[in-house]
């Protein structure tokens, strides 16, 4: 009784806190000051037509670095908790048999899913997409691979090499921006801005997007791989 009352009180307090936000929301007739600045100066500042990507990658690039760090920390903690020692591992686990249809279809579907991820990475500064979306789609390709073949082993060496290389490259581009240009961290004036709408444009943004996507994609694949391998314990 006492505990239920406390829960009800907390939920009611949350509702009371949220309600004024709902009441004061007029459906948004105009942008905030910051949003207005980004919409008006986004293209001339960054050369990218996708404003969300330019906010994620350039204007708020430092936040993105923090986000990638948090993801890396979470992946490290998961692998610390769930890593299976060699003595406890079952080499070829007998799982519920995977249908031939799924294993056949996944052979063609996995490459195509990864290709779509790459397409979203490369065009991130022009159309909806960018590093996070591409990385998430690449990770779902890995998930399909695991579902089709539960005993599949990820090549951890390659994954770690890709992950750390792209992480270092991401930070390096940021630091070069501080040192050489006056644009600050992750300035994309490293290269020529080019004409908006072309594939090679928006300065360093496509490059940053690709490194970000590789990092997020390998990180999430790694988390999935640890979860799958933890099923092989004992």
């Amino acid at each position, binding site marked *: 009784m006492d505990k239920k009352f406390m829960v009800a009180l907390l*939920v009611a307090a949350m509702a009371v806190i949220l309600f004024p936000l709902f009441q004061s929301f007029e459906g948004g007739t105009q942008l905030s000051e910051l949003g207005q600045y980004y919409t008006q100066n986004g293209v001339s500042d960054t050369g990218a037509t996708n404003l969300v990507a330019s906010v994620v990658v350039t204007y708020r690039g430092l936040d993105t670095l923090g986000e990638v760090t948090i993801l890396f920390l979470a992946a490290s903690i998961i692998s610390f908790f769930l890593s299976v020692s060699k003595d406890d591992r079952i080499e070829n686990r007998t799982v519920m048999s995977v249908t031939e249809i799924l294993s056949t279809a996944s052979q063609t579907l996995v490459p195509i899913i990864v290709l779509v991820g790459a397409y979203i990475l490369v065009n991130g500064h022009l159309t909806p997409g960018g590093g996070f979306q591409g990385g998430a789609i690449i990770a779902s390709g890995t998930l399909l691979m695991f579902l089709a073949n539960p005993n599949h082993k990820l090549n951890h060496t390659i994954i770690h090499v890709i992950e750390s290389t792209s992480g270092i490259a991401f930070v390096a581009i940021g630091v070069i921006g501080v040192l050489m240009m006056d644009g600050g961290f992750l300035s994309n004036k490293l290269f020529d801005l080019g004409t908006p709408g072309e594939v090679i444009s928006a300065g360093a943004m496509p490059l940053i997007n690709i490194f970000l996507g590789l990092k997020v994609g390998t990180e999430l694949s790694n988390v999935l791989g640890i979860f799958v391998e933890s099923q092989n314990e004992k």
Partner: protein
Amino acid sequence: MDQYLGQVVMAIGFILAILGLYGLLSQKNMIKMILGFSIFTTGVNIIMVAIGYVKGGTAPILDAEGNAVAKFVDPVPQALVLTSIVIGLGVTAMMLAYVMKLYQDKKSLNINDYKDLKW
């Protein structure tokens, strides 16, 4: 016709957030608690995107010449939510890893069985 779209979606976000919070607080099963947490996160993300919505606005993507053709919605909340979703997956996975380890220890999913830190 669509002048209340922002309000409707925001209300959905509120209901989801409150339901998620209620699940997080009231359930005893740890996996159920984590499910409640992930629903709470989804609700908060919907609220954040709804705040940046502008009536009749289009996605903040310019045409090939770089001209703003129409009214845009606010790109800032969208960028924040983007990172929030990815972090949400990392945090959920981490909590589930803890649950797996705790279950190996005591063979129970009930949160009331873990009173080692209670005093």
